[in-house]
């Protein structure tokens, strides 16, 4: 099948920052993203789990598939949001179907 080069950016970020990240991404011209729930994890600030939690706690994983030329704008927007916060940003090269959507 005809595929097109793209980038998969995965941002694992604190749930209370999700809305700010979404706004930053939209501001940076990202046409779409998907938010996955996170059950728990471990990092320098220790281990945590969502079990039994009541508040808007924990983290979420935000996945954006973008054209290669948009990655830099996206990363800069994302970085401004995560900068002072805990979170992980990774970029993977990928190929997509239906490039006109990105």
């Amino acid at each position, binding site marked *: 099948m005809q595929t097109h080069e793209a980038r998969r950016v995965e941002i694992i970020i604190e749930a*209370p920052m999700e*809305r*700010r990240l979404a706004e930053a991404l939209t501001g940076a011209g990202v046409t779409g993203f998907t938010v996955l729930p996170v059950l728990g994890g471990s990092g320098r600030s*220790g281990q*945590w789990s969502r*079990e*039994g*939690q*009541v*508040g808007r706690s924990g983290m979420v994983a935000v996945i954006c598939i973008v054209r290669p030329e948009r990655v830099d704008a996206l990363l800069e927007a994302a970085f401004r949001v995560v900068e002072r916060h805990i979170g992980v940003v990774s970029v993977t090269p990928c190929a997509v179907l239906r490039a006109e959507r990105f």
Partner: protein
Amino acid sequence: MDGILELARQNLISPIILSFALGFAAALLRSDLSVPEAAAKALSIYLLFAIGFKGGVSVASHGIDATLLASLLAGVVLSLLLPFAGFALLGAMTRLPVTDRAAVAAHYGSISIVTFVAASSVLSTQGIAAEGYMVAVAAAMEAPAILSALWLVARAGGHREIDRDLWREILLNGSIVLLVGAFLIGLATGEPGFSRIASFIDAPFQGVLCLFLLDMGLVAGRGLLRTRAVLAPGVLGFGVVMPMLGAAAGLGTALLLGLSTGGAMLLMALCASASYIAVPAAMRVALPDANPAVSLTLALGITFPFNLTLGLPIYLAAAGWATGG
């Protein structure tokens, strides 16, 4: 003194407290018992809705007390001021950095609605009435402490601006909106509304509270296990001293306001308790450098169980003695 002990004993063997103890013990024993996040949130929605609604109904039937507005105002002022006391106390008792001290102080200026519920249920077991609008006071005390914490950090040089979004997140936090909204619904529908849904929000209330406290015991116990390392003795001590100090401030205010014994005890419980729903999320946004584990473990792992077991009987005894009730 005997009264307190007997009360404490009665309190300790209630299903509510024992459910918390069960969760706490299960966590410390590293059992895999757990309540799903969605279920815990559903339980908290139920509790907020029921407690708010019942408060509104109570105000609807007893009429709006002259001290209602004064109490609301007093609640806001207490929530604004307690963080300063907490911040200073943490400075004296611990070596926590400024941001952590401010974040912890915000939690203690705000309130824990489950502690309030547990206090209400101690009162109803003892057959002591309380002002119905104390629920509204609880809601009023949730947010102001956050502002004080941000001011404390700003004063120490770590300037933080509160953008419009943050304002909204603080003031229209889900738990505040639900509590106030349910209070207004109760106020509007009064006894007739209450009688239509009493078999949902009243009859099973104590039982639902048991399951919620089971969950809180699990979360508190796991939190303690995970953050043992960061909790120095001074930090732990703060988790017991601060609620006593808060309760004292609450009692003084209650006397000024002329609250009943029940009302005084509830205000003490509010001042003595620390937030673990609204404030933590706000702190993650506003003070990301603060270690969330410290505040949450203190609030949920030390202060909450202290209030639940020893604090509430002490506050009730003190309120009874001071108000002559």
